[in-house]
């Protein structure tokens, strides 16, 4: 059971994020919601990197005589997560700057009032 807890956390984070995006009115909270979804997905990726009894993927510290032990953990998920975090930062910054400009033009952060484009 305990090994499923992280996955439950992932799903919960994604659902919380979606809830914030769909039901919260403040633009900043929507941005926070997206950020939570992103953290959830990142957590998911990190979790996939865990191998029980794994060896760090450093070739110099391998046991002598072995070249590629099967228990060596591939660093792929970590690399993916780093990339994803970097992208997330860019998206976050862009979204927040847009929110700032929108506040200047519309005078509000209520998502229900920011809808001149409709129908």
């Amino acid at each position: 059971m305990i090994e499923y807890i992280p996955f439950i956390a992932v799903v919960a984070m994604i659902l919380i994020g979606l809830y914030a995006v769909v039901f919260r009115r403040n633009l900043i909270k929507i941005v926070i919601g997206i950020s939570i979804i992103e953290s959830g997905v990142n957590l998911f990726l990190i979790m996939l990197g865990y191998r029980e009894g794994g060896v760090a993927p450093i070739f110099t510290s391998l046991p002598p005589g072995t070249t590629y032990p099967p228990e060596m953990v591939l660093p792929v998920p970590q690399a993916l997560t780093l990339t994803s975090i970097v992208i997330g930062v860019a998206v976050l910054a862009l979204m927040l700057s847009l929110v700032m400009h929108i506040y200047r033009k519309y005078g509000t952060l209520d998502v229900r009032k920011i809808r001149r484009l409709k129908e």
Partner: protein
Amino acid sequence: MFTLESGSGFWNPILWILVLLITFLLFYGIRGFGKSTYKKGTEQTKAFLSGNKEPSPEEMHIKASNLYWGFTTSMKSLYSVLRKMHTGNTSDYILWFVLVLAVLLLILGVM
């Protein structure tokens, strides 16, 4: 070679263009026999409004949003629903995404 074949039918644009060209030449010639002149600047070049005085262009102009009145009127109930659907609210856009996701998950989950 020039015929587009779909397995159920065919379409040859070149042939059609040639037929069009020939008939165009023929009827352009025939049209040339007709009288081409008219009295410019007289009453006859004004828009025909059953004898009423011609209003200014702004008043006479029929706006684009009034076009297809007949169609939109007979489809009024459909339009009121569809226009309401596009709320312009960002949250609703994501709600649609979540809804479609849920429905498809349900369909493929059952299958």
